[in-house]
């Protein structure tokens, strides 16, 4: 019964873009119907999820399906439910935001197409999450992946957007290929596509399944060396789609990884070490690349890679706990990782939406073209500030809670006396600390350069806050960040249930027993109250005796807006320290003589993994394969002949393998 609710919700979101196709291009009826359908689907799904959490029992449903090996069997356990919440909630909020941000009246060329695929992405994500059958999982996966390709290419008249969407398509093909191989291996071991526990699996196939899953899901999640599609795709898509992609879509990779790990037998320690290393690399290099960016959406996209790294650190601790049979590590690590999935969805959604509001008002994504927005866009600014504090993992907001859980897990694991066990968590904790410090540097840079000081160009001259439809979804997200930060105990039950899917957990190591939630709430509440009280005290003191003046510039009487420290100057020292990875491109002209003429300076941090590693590698492989070009002369007759040959060979092989 409960599963039907979710199924109906999935149907609603899948069809949400369809009614709009029957209205005129200039009509706004379609988008309103779509928002209505998405919101009611979210309400239905959240009701069903609430039921699953309160009852503690998984909802199941099984229908027959004509696809060979496939079955329409869905299973909503706590882990799936945990991932369904952001899928439905953030997609509905994004759609409401889209009413103003991507209004049909202004975007007649592509508005209806975007709405159609938006619903399909959400439906694909939800199907993938609830699937209890490998075929259904892959079907949902492909719907979501291909719909996202169209959504990224919404503005396909721009060459950059086309390039970004094709890069995404190529990367996802590789990922899906890995998943096909993984499910084929699972089928080979279990003789079924049903996703069931495989505790009897020998280490060989288990490792193969794990590695293929890590590759396939890692490409979707944007784990560091596999992230190549992510920055340009997030930058090219409309902001509410970026929020959906960064906040929800890439997390399906995490879901797939966690689900696969939960089905596999007890893992060896080196899986955990691998996950912790990948997490550390993604986190540190993700944020380092982010610091070098000038485009606010590319910057946020690199932060998604960083946060995926933090989530992987949590999962690594959980896998370590399973390998060592230490349930408290499983609870702390997985709860931290899962909570960070929610948290990242909330604050990254908030940041992408508020960055979208800035782009909507200023028509540029260049951070160094903005500046001085705070007085003009007071509400958007404070919402962005909340998101920035949250993503840096600072108390009293939600990012701190999940990072604290991961830290507790890492510290706990590092107390072990076996060398191969304690070294990785110790270094991972140091990496997490460095990630925190660098994220702080990056977000003070963005907030300072875009919202504070003088305006740096005329782009922000006429900027103003967006309407209620832009602000309300951001407000909801910001409120959620605060609620989780102030009262993390409210979701402890949900987290416990989700962790229990991963492995049995004795009640003595439930999350409430391991994590200091009540102290955290107390500390956060005191912090908030003292900050407000201190602010009021200072404000009262400043009621008299204050005067206005110019910013002190060492006696220079005409400080101008161009004398401000730009965001690239702010980042220069850190970019220099990470030069070995970032490979920044700097264009600098010589400054001759005592009275030099005007000169130029430009710096840029492109994706070094894509440009310096993958592209040359692919080019050399391609050059080598050119020698086989004579096989493809472009003649249709010859191609038909190949098909016939292949058919005959296949038949002969089939006869040989299975003689009657």
């Amino acid at each position, binding site marked *: 019964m409960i599963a039907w609710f979710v199924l109906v919700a999935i149907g609603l979101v899948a069809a949400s873009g369809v009614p709009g196709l029957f209205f005129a291009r200039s009509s706004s009826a379609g988008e309103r119907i779509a928002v209505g359908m998405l919101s009611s689907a979210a309400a239905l799904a959240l009701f069903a999820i609430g039921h699953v959490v309160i009852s503690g029992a998984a909802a199941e449903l099984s229908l027959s399906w004509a696809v060979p090996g496939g079955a329409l069997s869905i299973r909503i356990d706590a882990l799936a439910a945990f991932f369904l919440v952001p899928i439905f909630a953030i997609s509905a909020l994004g759609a409401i935001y889209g009413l103003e941000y991507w209004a049909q009246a202004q975007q007649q060329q592509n508005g209806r197409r975007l709405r159609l695929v938006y619903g399909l992405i959400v439906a694909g994500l939800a199907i993938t999450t609830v699937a209890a059958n490998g075929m259904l999982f892959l079907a949902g996966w492909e719907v979501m992946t291909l719909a996202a390709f169209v959504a990224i290419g919404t503005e396909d008249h721009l060459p950059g957007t086309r390039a970004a969407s094709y890069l995404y398509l190529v990367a996802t093909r590789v990922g899906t290929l890995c998943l096909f191989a993984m499910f084929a291996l699972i089928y080979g071991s279990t003789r079924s596509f049903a996703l069931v526990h495989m505790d009897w699996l020998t280490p060989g196939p288990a490792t193969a399944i794990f590695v293929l899953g890590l590759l396939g899901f890692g490409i979707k999640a944007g784990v560091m060396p596999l992230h190549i599609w992510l920055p340009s795709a997030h930058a090219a898509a409309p902001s509410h789609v970026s929020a959906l992609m960064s906040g929800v879509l890439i997390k399906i990779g995490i879901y797939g990884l966690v689900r696969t790990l939960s089905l596999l037998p007890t893992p060896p320690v080196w899986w955990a070490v691998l996950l912790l290393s990948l997490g550390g690399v993604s986190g540190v290099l993700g944020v380092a690349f982010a610091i070098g960016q000038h485009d606010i959406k590319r910057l946020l996209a690199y932060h998604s890679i960083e946060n995926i790294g933090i989530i992987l650190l949590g999962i690594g601790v959980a896998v370590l706990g399973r390998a060592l049979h230490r349930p408290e590590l499983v609870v702390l690590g997985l709860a931290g990782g899962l909570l960070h999935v929610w948290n990242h969805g909330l604050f990254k959604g908030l940041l992408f939406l508020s960055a979208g509001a800035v782009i909507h008002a200023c028509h540029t994504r260049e951070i160094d073209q903005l500046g001085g927005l705070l007085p003009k866009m007071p509400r958007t600014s404070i919402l962005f500030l909340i998101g920035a504090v949250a993503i840096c993992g600072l108390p009293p907001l939600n990012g701190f809670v999940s990072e604290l859980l991961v830290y507790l897990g890492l510290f706990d694991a590092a107390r072990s006396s076996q060398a191969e066990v304690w070294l990785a968590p110790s270094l991972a904790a140091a990496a997490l600390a460095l990630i925190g410090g660098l994220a702080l540097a990056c977000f003070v840079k963005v907030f300072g350069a875009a919202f504070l*000081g003088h305006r740096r160009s005329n782009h922000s001259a006429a900027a103003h806050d967006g309407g209620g439809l832009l602000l309300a979804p951001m407000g909801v997200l910001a409120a959620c960040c605060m609620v989780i930060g102030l009262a993390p105990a409210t979701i402890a039950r949900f987290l416990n249930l989700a962790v229990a899917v991963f492995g049995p957990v004795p009640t003595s190591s439930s999350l409430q027993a*391991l994590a200091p939630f009540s102290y955290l709430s107390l500390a956060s509440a005191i912090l908030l109250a003292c900050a407000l009280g*201190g602010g009021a005290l200072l404000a009262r003191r400043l009621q008299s005796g204050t005067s206005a003046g110019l910013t002190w510039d060492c006696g220079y009487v005409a400080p101008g807006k161009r004398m401000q420290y730009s965001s690239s100057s702010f980042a220069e020292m*850190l970019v220099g320290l990470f030069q070995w990875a970032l490979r920044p491109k700097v264009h600098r002209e010589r400054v001759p003589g005592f009275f030099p003429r005007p000169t130029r300076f430009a710096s840029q941090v492109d994706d070094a993994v894509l440009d310096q590693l993958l592209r040359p590698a692919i080019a050399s492989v391609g050059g080598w394969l050119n020698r086989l070009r004579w096989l493809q002369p472009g003649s249709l007759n010859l191609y038909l002949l190949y098909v016939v040959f292949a058919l005959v060979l296949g038949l002969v092989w089939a006869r040989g393998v299975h003689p009657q």
Partner: protein
Amino acid sequence: MKLLQIATQLAVALLLPPLLLGVIVKVKAFFAGRVGAPLLQLYRDVWKLWRKGSVFSTTTTWVFKAGPVVNLVAVLLMPLGTHRALLSFAGDAILFAYLLALGRFFTIVAALDTGSSFEGMGAAREATFSALAEPGLFLGLMALARKSGSVSLSQMLGPKLLDAWFDSGGALVLVIASFFVVLLAENSRIPFDDPNTHLELTMIHEVMVLDHSGPALGMILYGAALKLFLLGALIARLVTPISTGNPWLDWLVFVVAMVGLSGLVGIVESTMARLRLLHLPRLLVAASIISVFAIILAR
């Protein structure tokens, strides 16, 4: 009795910090052959600034005023690293580091609110060096956690600390060395920054607060003293691992150790020059590596 204990801790934590800066100034004056400012000068300064008027740049917004407040509140709420903490829980060591970061976030943002390139430079340096100091601090905490089996400061620095010294004193020496570098970096002391030189481009913390005046500046000065005190408390407790059983004697030992530590900072400042800016990251990385060795030794 319990109430008296709490009152003592609050009194020490709130009243002692400005004295430490006075001690540093006195030591530096001694080395330079001067008399130096009175020991209690900072108390007077803070009190005077609180009653003064202030000038605000027309560029600035509420963020500029929020900076000092949030920084001070964050530092005030940081757990005190002694074995007699008022409130302690698993993970308060991490809260310690993140409250420090919260204060830093708002100090930097307030500096950027002025639109001044000086303050931008100071802010960029503060962000860079503090980010590099984080691993050193966390690895040091990790070594203590490994030794004590807890992620709570009052356990890490608890009554068993003396046994830890006999057991693996080398690790604790390395942790102290690493924490001392972090202390100097986080508080912008020599060799990271010279707190005496106003208006020179080579500065970090002082240049960030260039535009603040009056009560807000007072809050910043007091917050900086608290930060030195709280980071110093970790080191002071590590150096004096004894628990006499008599709380008054314990507090006396603690205060003496803190004053001694300030004296050491003063001696470092008097006998060393500021390092070149480009060499600072190496020192911070060295602190992290020292901490890694401490973890290896902490058995």
